């Protein structure tokens, strides 16, 4: 369940700082980054843009049977978070009381470990969200 080093490195900027894309034609924001605007197709003019680091829970589930490598954190909340610019992202919810993990709750991005290659390998960092 772990990604290769090259992929971790490629995704690093997006995952550290929520860097997505903005289309200057249709004014839409996208995350993760797109090579072609899904709305304007070839007519789109894309540039990098940092997504807002706050939003609200759009939907969520409690994962009780996590995949291999997630033994320490299971059970954990997996949620679709709608950022302040309406972009939706899939993320874990951490550091939040069970009764606060609800649809519509405001959340903010946190910097956390997202995967590790065993005890001696690379540590990948990225975003998770917490209820504020």
């Amino acid at each position, binding site marked *: 369940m772990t990604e290769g080093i090259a992929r971790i490195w490629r995704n690093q900027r997006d995952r550290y700082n929520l860097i997505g894309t903005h289309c200057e034609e249709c004014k839409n924001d996208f995350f993760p980054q797109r090579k072609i605007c899904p709305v304007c197709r070839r007519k789109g003019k894309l540039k990098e843009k940092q997504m807002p680091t706050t939003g609200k829970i759009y939907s969520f589930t409690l994962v009780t049977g996590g995949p291999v490598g997630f033994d320490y954190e299971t059970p954990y909340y997996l949620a679709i978070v709608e950022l302040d610019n309406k972009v939706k992202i899939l993320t874990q919810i951490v550091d939040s009381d069970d009764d606060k993990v609800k649809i519509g709750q405001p959340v903010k991005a946190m910097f956390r470990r997202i995967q590790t290659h065993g005890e001696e390998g690379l540590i990948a*960092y990225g975003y998770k969200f917490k209820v504020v």
Partner: protein
Amino acid sequence: MAKIMKSDASVRSASPVINAGVGIVSYGYFVPRLRIKVSDIAATWGKDASVGESLGVKEKAVGAWDEDSCTFAVEASRMALKATAGANGGSGINPQEIGAIYVGSESKPYAVKPSAAIVAEAIQATPSLTAADLEFACKAGTAGMQMAMGLVSSGMINYGLAIGSDTAQAQPGDALEYTAGSGAAAFIIGKKNVIATIDDTYSFTTDTPDFWRRQHAEFPQHAGRFTGEPAYFKHVQGATQGILEKTGTTTKDYDYVVFHQPNGKFPLRVAKSLGFGDEAVKQGLITPFIGNTYSAASMIGLVSVLDVAKPGDKILLCSYGSGSGSDAFVLTVQDEITKPNRRPSVKLLDYIAKNKKYVDYAGYAKHRKKIKHIE
């Protein structure tokens, strides 16, 4: 052969005074949410529950399984940057203007691979800056402050970021386990927009074998009672007396004093021995609530003081790192601190009180990966 005594007062007063307008531009902190009560640790090892009382520590902060000193450092640094929002007429400080990042820690996630570079990337300060990780037990963070001060004072950089961060490690069952906490503090050092000037600094260093961790060892070892008088007290007193002499000030001149805090008792004892009242120490004494945050401990105490400080207040800060050394600083709070959006939106003590979830010893052992587990 004649011994050269650098602690001689004449040498001290002859050393250069730093005061060049350099100071703290902003600050941030991070404390993980999990807590374990010292009484639960004591019960696990069949010790009396009163151990917490004798150490002056009620509970300690514990990093979750997916947190480490690097994630703490990033959170504290982001808060420090956010707290510059009211500076420069509301435009804040661009992370691209940060010319140096130093992370002081003794619990780096990697033995080789700099946390400072990860922090730099995570606050978007890359690529035009210098960065390094520092280690001097619990005083590596204040060493970073001094390095940043030097670079700013000399004009080599505009802003430097100094961070102290630790997921304080302790061997299960060892006396250190009661107090080894987790947290981080970050300070942006500069010459413009300072909320507190750093008027001077003075350090006191000797080779003292009170506490160490060898390269491949998981947990540190310490020399028990040896960690008190010849280590902590000698160096904290040495550095504090040194900076008082160097600046021609006395204990009465300070509104607040912050010492390294391995437990809740040592800072009060060392303050009393130097002539400071308990009241001056209290605001910066954070270890009773989150444990000893090692490299962050004295810096996080300064955070708590700056949370309530008023222009004109004088603060004395003195760190301690085993091995051993202390860095002392004299600060004067400036008007800038009263401007809107120039401090974190939540005070450290409020954050600590409201953001916590208790775990028992088994939960703590799991999160800190002290349980052997097949991946």
